[in-house]
């Protein structure tokens, strides 16, 4: 249970990190808290030639909040969000989701950017941030570009970063004040990776109703208009029932092999959680 040998470098700015990543031509990995990469290295599932420590880069713990939303640096930890050191008033769901990611000892080092780049379909941040229509800010050290998070992830454990690129920050758009969110994961023990997960954003003021199915065998399944499953825009206080056959069709099209029942339960509970707010 020891990793294969690798080199190590600590980058002090984005350009330096990008240069090292580019020179290694795909065999380098950026590391911050190492809570996803560490197990992969120890199990020898990842065998990079060099690790680039990006925690000394000031931009990566930078937070910027404006009317449109909040930009969260990639090296912000899950416990930073759990404890409210990074927060958005309209989205208390962020702290709730954070509290369910792994265990406290993991959250103290595990970063939001690392979780997304690791792109484990069973992780918590990916479906949540897909529901919130977050964007990934990708940099090559000189220029940056924005990519919708559901496009940033290209498959299970796969993201669209080119050699020489890294995730700089996540932009979370601000929903309206009356927006409701829900996230539910099915797992046998608190803190585990999900067997099935569902995330919901219901923002009546903006006419947004988005549902995400996580813990797939690939990218999260994003249902941009969740009326396809619920039939109508749920009203606050009213009981909501999802159309199981529509949900089943969706799951089949996504090619999921885990029991559909689990995913439907996760979705229904995420919606119930959103409604209960």
């Amino acid at each position, binding site marked *: 249970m020891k990793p294969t040998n690798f080199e*190590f470098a600590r980058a002090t700015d984005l350009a330096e990190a990008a240069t090292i990543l580019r020179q290694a031509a795909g065999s380098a990995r950026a590391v911050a808290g190492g*809570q996803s990469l*560490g197990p992969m290295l120890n199990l020898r599932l990842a065998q990079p030639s060099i690790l680039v420590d990006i*925690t000394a880069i000031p931009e990566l713990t930078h937070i910027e909040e404006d009317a449109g939303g909040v930009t969260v640096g990639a090296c912000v*930890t899950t416990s*930073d969000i759990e404890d409210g*050191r990074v927060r958005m008033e309209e989205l208390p769901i962020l702290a709730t989701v954070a509290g369910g990611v*792994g*265990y406290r*000892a993991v959250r103290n080092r595990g970063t939001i950017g690392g979780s997304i780049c690791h792109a484990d379909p069973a992780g918590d941040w990916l479906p949540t941030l897909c529901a919130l229509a977050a964007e990934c800010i990708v940099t090559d050290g000189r220029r940056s570009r924005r990519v919708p998070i559901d496009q940033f992830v290209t498959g299970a454990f796969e993201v669209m970063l080119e050699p020489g690129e890294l995730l700089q920050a996540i932009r979370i758009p601000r929903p309206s004040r009356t927006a409701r969110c829900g996230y539910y994961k099915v797992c046998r023990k608190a803190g585990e990776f999900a067997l099935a997960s569902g995330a919901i954003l219901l923002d009546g003021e903006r006419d947004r109703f988005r549902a995400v199915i996580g813990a797939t065998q690939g990218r999260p399944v994003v249902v941009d208009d969740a009326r396809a499953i619920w039939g109508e825009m749920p009203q606050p206080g009213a009981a909501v029932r999802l159309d199981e056959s529509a949900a089943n069709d969706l799951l089949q099209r996504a090619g999921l092999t885990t029991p559909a029942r689990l995913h439907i339960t996760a979705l229904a509970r995420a919606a119930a959680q959103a409604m209960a707010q």
Partner: protein
Amino acid sequence: MKPVGLTVNAIPVMETVEPRMHLADLLRERLGLTGTHLRCEQGACGACTLLIDGQPARSCITYAVLCEGAQITTIEGLENDPVMIALRRAFMAEHGLQCGFCTPGMLITARDIVTRLPDADERRVRLELSGNLCRCTGYVGIVRAIRRVLEERRAGALAASAVAPRGLGPVGSRHAGPPGGEVSVSTAAPIPAGSLHRAVMVARVKKTFTRLLGKLRR
């Protein structure tokens, strides 16, 4: 090989390590601090949990080179910590351990619960313990022990240690500079490689000697 300088139980340490050496191996193999246990080595079982900059973290998936400038506190370094003294007593009284393998990690997590979540109820204690596996006790005694110390703390019998303000980013990444609170830099000269190990061994020999001497006197 990379040089790494960090503080272990308030003693500055300089070591040269392979980048793939994780923190737990540095502590156990180089420094002789075997109180930090290793089992799953993938962050799931919690046996290797220790404090990095005062916060619980996994030492099996945290590489030593990532801890430049960090303050590491192992179970050995908490011998005189008031919360840990109370926890050790409670774990004994409530049968919170049997084989003892999970105990160092359990105690570190327990200390985090008592200091960070003084109002935790049984449900919360169990939730927070979900990252530490115990195969002997069934957790009942462990939960009772932690709740006993929580009650002591709420009754004011235990000095509440202040939770230090924290900057953003992974704990232990102090080379990133102080984004939030002060970073205290130790002015003590770093001890050369291997000497902490010697100090620990000398302390152990002394302890054994004193115990034998006590037995002889009886």
